[in-house]
């Protein structure tokens, strides 16, 4: 298999972009990534999007994006894997480079949640669970997270104050980030004072509703040497699990994430301890804790304690969500994984501005679909 490099990134600000369309946001990010890489064309386009068919009543986003960026003729497809759709598109794109079929592939993730009412968005995001049975209970994604949160606190004798540290951490890092939806700090007291959405899960422990698009330009070895743009080396792995966490042997262990993380490290040829930055799928505070524990960066029941001890700060052992993560940078579903990898790329190519974490040679981005029924893990290394 040939090596795969990230050679360009493009991001829109995450916000409620009332005046702009999904297509328009994705085209902006795509064109920015192509320009950042300095390529004149691409061999294929992969689009990550989850709920466009529901909220925009629009399928066929592959051909729509190729047209929107003036690249008619290029093969283009949308890839879907619930909230991990962007990562699934990245996975597919990187395989085409690794197989030697393409020299340059564009990956675009985009989502526009503000076109829907709050209850429509809740329903659309429930499509990541098995809808025939779980939906009958009205059990939304957040309610399943709340049940995991209860089990976690009871099993580990942990506390809400421990778990609720993750949104504080994400907001700390988002402060002043131009593309973040919520670029300001919040205190633990403020998180704890926010109303319950599904007890013990509070409003400020969940990612908000936003629109955004992000793009990556991937190249293979043949083209990498000819481009002046800064590059990182990409390794990616994925796994699946039972749709419902309560059908798994241990609901508090995301085994798909564990498998994907181990595989991605193996492909990259590095140890876990060499990972210098982690972008987590913190759709909720409890998912952040379970993700760190399942991927081996924290002991079971220890993630919240490590967060309080500063281990995940920008100057900590494993800096986490260095631009704010899902909670504060924002979570435009199908775009989220592309933001994560783009942010790692900015870090590893020393373009992270005031959030620059120095001296780190590799980073990991974790993307989860549903309650970790799909896990896609990307490791970026300095080229």
């Amino acid at each position: 298999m040939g090596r795969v490099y990230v050679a360009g990134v493009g991001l829109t600000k995450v916000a409620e972009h009332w005046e702009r369309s999904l297509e328009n946001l994705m085209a902006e990010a795509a064109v920015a990534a192509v320009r950042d890489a300095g390529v004149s064309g691409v061999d294929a386009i992969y689009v990550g999007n989850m709920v466009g068919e529901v909220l925009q009543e629009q399928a066929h986003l592959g051909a729509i994006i190729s047209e929107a960026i003036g690249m008619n003729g290029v093969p283009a497809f949308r890839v879907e894997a619930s909230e991990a759709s962007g990562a699934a598109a990245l996975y597919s794109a990187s395989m085409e480079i690794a197989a030697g079929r393409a020299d340059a592939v564009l990956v675009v993730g985009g989502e526009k949640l503000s076109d829907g009412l709050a209850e429509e968005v809740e329903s659309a995001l429930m499509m990541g669970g098995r809808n025939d049975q779980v939906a009958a209970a009205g059990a939304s994604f957040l309610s399943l997270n709340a049940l995991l949160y209860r089990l976690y606190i009871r099993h580990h004798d942990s506390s809400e104050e421990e778990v609720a540290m993750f949104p504080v951490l994400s907001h700390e890092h988002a402060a002043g980030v131009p593309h973040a939806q919520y670029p300001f700090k919040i205190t633990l007291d403020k998180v704890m004072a926010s109303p319950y959405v599904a007890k013990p899960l509070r409003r400020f422990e969940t990612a908000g509703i936003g629109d955004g698009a992000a793009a990556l330009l991937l190249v293979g070895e043949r083209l990498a040497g000819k481009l002046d743009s800064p590059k990182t080396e990409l390794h990616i792995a994925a796994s699946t699990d039972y749709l419902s966490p309560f059908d798994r042997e241990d609901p508090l262990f995301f085994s798909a994430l564990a498998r994907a993380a181990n595989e991605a490290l193996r492909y990259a040829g590095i140890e876990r301890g060499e990972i210098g930055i982690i972008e987590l799928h913190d759709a909720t505070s409890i998912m952040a804790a379970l993700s760190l524990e399942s991927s081996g960066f924290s002991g079971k029941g220890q993630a919240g304690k490590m967060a309080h001890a500063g281990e995940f700060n920008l100057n900590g052992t494993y800096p986490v969500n260095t631009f704010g993560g899902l909670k504060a940078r924002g979570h435009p579903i199908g775009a989220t994984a592309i933001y994560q990898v783009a942010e790692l790329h900015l870090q590893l190519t020393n373009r992270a501005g005031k959030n620059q974490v120095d001296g780190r040679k590799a980073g990991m981005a974790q993307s989860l679909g549903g309650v970790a029924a799909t896990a896609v893990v990307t490791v970026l290394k300095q080229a």
Partner: protein
Amino acid sequence: MRVPRYWRNLPFIYRLSGWRCVECGAFHPVKPIVCSRCRSSEFQEAELPKTGRLIAYTVLKSPPKGYEEQAPYIVGLVELDDGTRLISQIVDVSEDELKEDMRVEAVFRRLRSNDERDVIEYGYKFRPVID
């Protein structure tokens, strides 16, 4: 939910009736092609027990479409007497009367109302067992 899809799921959501894997004993709400746990393809019709215990619960305040009138409502993780775990609404009880580990039983209730093209859905929910 549209009529054909609702109809396909009726045995399970009305009676907790489904299929048990002959090989490993796993319960499946709808007859699968192969068992997700052991890949066997032999199944027997089976009805789940109607009682169990409440493992964990939450009160959901931001409902999905079709559940707006019921919100806030209680979503529980129930372990039935045969060990099968279900997600269900917990009814006929207020939040402060709930206790983890309490006995619960299935009841037949209205699930959700949808737009005019869809059916009004009925099915199981759980409530505390009154001694």
